[in-house]
């Protein structure tokens, strides 16, 4: 019975679609987006110039894109999932040959209107791909070696390509997102435990093949004072900025650490530091709460969806989003080594904004077309 109704209800009127839109989620995204524009404005000491203009434009363009994508049928993403994955992988390969280098790593390709970072796109592609992959597999089959090996290979290819760029941060985020879906799909806990142990054992080997700057970042993480003017500088200055913000912060445009350029990478990875310095503990909690609400809304949409694809996608994307946010904040407060991971929506950077808005668009599409059964 349930099956037949769902098969019949695949057509939606426009009004239905508008009714199905999660306006609360859109509002949260808009709020975080405006906060990000003000924060970037503050990195430029209150001048409405290059970064602010760019960021505002990108936010408007990609936010609109998010709204448009919301109305693309979720079954489209289901059908094109593997194509999306292959496209992402091809772009990553293109980076190797035609990539643009900046500060020692090759991550971008020139698309004339913007420099695209394919690894950011891959963050979404892997979730879509895995959601489709596990959509059809029976839970009883999941534990078989065949279904264990295939996703691992699918995961390792982009991770390897991203690591060699080199971009450890994004690779970790891609791996994390993929593993989240594998976990959700129900792979036995023991495999996670085993692989965790293997990773631990092979850690010395992994460290030995890391680039010197990556090694020094990890060593610095354990002791920032090891090299206060070199590798430890960023984390020391970030902690000073956040700590000196106090309960209520130094006030908008008053963050001396960033204004006086003590803070590195303040528009990208360290945007949270700037925000926290200016708005204090209370401001930081508000921002974290907004992110938590966003994630809650995405999970809620997941529960409303019928198809496994949509469910897995929403839960997977929510987990990935959480991972991005957690890694970034934990990094700037000194809980994790500096690996280079932007804060979703807040950080300056087109590709990151593009991938988040794309991801959110698919989530919204899941909501609007929640009754689509998909693919049987």
């Amino acid at each position, binding site marked *: 019975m349930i*099956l037949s109704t769902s098969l019949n209800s695949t057509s939606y009127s426009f009004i239905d679609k508008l009714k199905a839109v999660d306006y609360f989620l859109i509002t949260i995204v808009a709020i975080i987006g405006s906060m990000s524009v003000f924060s970037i404005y503050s990195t430029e000491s209150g001048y409405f110039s290059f970064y602010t203009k760019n960021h505002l434009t990108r936010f408007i363009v990609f936010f609109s894109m998010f709204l448009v994508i919301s109305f693309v049928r979720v079954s489209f993403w289901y059908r094109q999932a593997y194509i999306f994955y292959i496209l992402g992988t091809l772009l990553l390969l293109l980076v190797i040959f035609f990539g643009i280098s900046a500060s020692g790593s090759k991550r971008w390709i020139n698309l004339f209107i913007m420099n695209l970072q394919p690894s950011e796109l891959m963050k979404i592609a892997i979730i879509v791909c895995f959601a489709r992959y596990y959509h059809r597999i*029976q*839970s*009883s089959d999941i534990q078989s070696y065949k279904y264990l090996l295939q996703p691992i290979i699918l995961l390792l290819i982009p991770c390897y390509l991203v690591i060699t760029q080199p971009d450890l941060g994004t690779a970790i985020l891609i791996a994390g997102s993929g593993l*989240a879906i594998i*976990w*959700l*799909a*129900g792979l036995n806990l023991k495999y996670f435990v085993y692989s965790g142990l293997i990773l631990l054992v092979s850690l010395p080997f992994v460290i030995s093949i890391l680039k010197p700057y990556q090694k020094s970042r990890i060593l610095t993480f354990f002791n920032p004072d090891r090299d206060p003017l070199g590798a430890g500088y960023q984390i020391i*200055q970030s*902690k*000073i*900025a*956040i*700590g*000196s*913000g*106090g*309960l209520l912060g130094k006030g908008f445009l008053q963050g*001396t*650490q960033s204004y*006086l*350029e*003590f803070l590195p990478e303040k528009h990208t990875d360290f945007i949270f530091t700037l925000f*926290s310095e200016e708005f*204090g*503990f209370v401001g*930081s*909690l508000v921002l*974290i709460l907004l992110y*938590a609400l966003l*994630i809650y809304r995405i*999970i809620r949409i*997941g529960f409303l969806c019928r198809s*496994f694809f949509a*469910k*897995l996608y929403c*839960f997977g994307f929510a*987990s990935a989003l*959480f991972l991005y946010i*957690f890694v970034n*904040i*934990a990094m700037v*407060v*000194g*809980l994790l080594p500096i690996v280079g991971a932007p804060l979703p929506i807040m950080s300056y950077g087109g590709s990151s904004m593009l991938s988040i808005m794309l991801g959110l668009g698919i989530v919204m599409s899941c909501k609007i077309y929640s009754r689509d059964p998909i693919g049987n």
Partner: protein
Amino acid sequence: MIKKIGNLNKNKIISRRLFVLVAAKIALIGIVTSRLYNLQISQKQKYEVLSDKNRIREWKTPPQRGIITDYFNNVIADNQRVYQVHLSLEEVSNFNNSIFKLKNIISLKEDEIKKIYEKKEKSKPWDTLIISENLSWKEFSKLNLYLHELDGAKPVLSTSRYYPYSNDLVHVVGYVGDATTQDIQNKKKIEENFVPGLKVGKIGIENSKDTDLIGNHGTKRYEVNASGKKISEISYNKETQGENLRTTIDLEIQQLAQELLKNQAGSICVMDIYTGEVITMASSPTYDPNKFTHGISTKDWNEIKNNKLRPLLNKSLAGLYSPGSTIKPLVALAALEYGIIDQKFKVNCKGHDHPYELYGERYHCWKKNGHGWMSMRNAIKQSCDIYFYEVARLLGVDKLSLIAKRYGLGSKVLEDFFSEEKKGIVPSTKWKKQVLEQSWYLGETVITGIGQGYIQTTPLQLCLMTAQLANGGFKIKPNLIYDKEIDLDIIKSKIESEKNKTVSQNILKDHEFKYYERLYRNPNNLKLVLDAMYGSTNEQFGTSFRSRHKEDKYKFAGKTGTSQVKRITDQDRELDLDLEEIEYKSRDHALFIAFAPYNKPRYSLSVLIEHGGSGSKAAAPIANKLIKKILDRHELREKIRKDLKNIA
């Protein structure tokens, strides 16, 4: 159905797994939040301090030195505008290049450039380097013309020490120079107020009164960015100028004294016999202290250092000389005080054919034909050596030494002002045993009686001795800086009350005297000695008769002295050469002590001309000119004294 069950099962698994993930997320949010709490609430103060340390940097601004004036408020050490060029290191893109360009514009010498590089090594990257402290107006305007090509170079209007009467006061005021590491270590005030380029006193008042003169540095606090560039001034705690000092020196008399000593090596000291104020302390030759302010050039330094007349030696208080006959009034006084002789005691001076003899050793008078029978008054007046050989023999060196020390010989006079001051030697049997580990010979007593032998004094000590004789025999406190605590009327009344005091039994024994305490046993003894000094200057046959003033108001009393530099042999006596025929280094030092005016003594002075020959020919005429000037300016000085007292 199977599929449905499978789907339900799958749904369950996904929900369960999601629940685990959400739980993990909540836990992680908890961790991040507590970390934020830790940083922003618990450790806020620590990070606030670190943030301020990051963004606020302090610059010290140099204080201005206090101004030094003479008694009449003439500025003798001033602060003058100077043109300087500073180099702000953080704004310099290529240091070598900047120095090269500057070198061509302001003509820096090789050794100056070397010093700049040395300074740069010690500087921090945001420091400012002083490239040149004292540019001429021409160089300064040229610099301003080329300024656009010189990144980081800054033309600066600053102040530096300037001595308007350059050579005349260097031995009193001293000079300043860059603070050395030693200066900073030794004086807390310098350490506290140290600013690169700070000048500190090296000698003289500039050195001894540094603590008062330096002032307090200012502090400018700037907000800086990560690369150390100044963004804005947060606060400016203004520097304060050092204390102004009024010395007791009379500039006009000092200048006259230096003029009188010109082209000779010597010293002139003038003192107020009641207040102990040093009115003049001239030493010749002198040098220009202004040359030291910005670092003296090697050529100038060598010129000063290699001058045979030793300009660097402050002869007034660091030059040691045998007092010669200027000691005679003191010897006579000692003998009278101890009752060894009375004024009628006579000795026959029979000339070089019949010298004074002691254990086969012969001692001659300076006068070839002898003085004949000499009384005490005549012996002082005509400076008969034979008389004093005998008196000294009768008195003994230890009693003489005791009285000599009491009147100011053998100890430092202005110790608080001049670290280089010497205390001289007043020999005694005990002294010789301790220092030379030999016993005393009577022959040594005999020559000490005419101020030769071991005895060594500074001109300033002789001036003080004369003052303490002339004021009626009271201990005074020599001073160089005006001190409102030292009040003439109070001193005079103290002295008056001392006069009437019954004399203690111990007066002739060795003991410490307080200021303004009487130093004598019987006032008549002192009167006799002073009267004999009057005779020496104002009566025929007196040794300084030719240098007397005939006008009553200028009349003074003095005593000549001729201090031998080497032992006079019989051959020398035979040759009896004129001064010009003797090698400079072998000529006698000429000395003269005096006090004026005679009726109502107020000032004492001492004159010393190194290798000037006899005191009566070389030193006494100088005193004549000087005393006129001193007494002419007396009224004016008293007026200032009253004014100062009223202000206080």
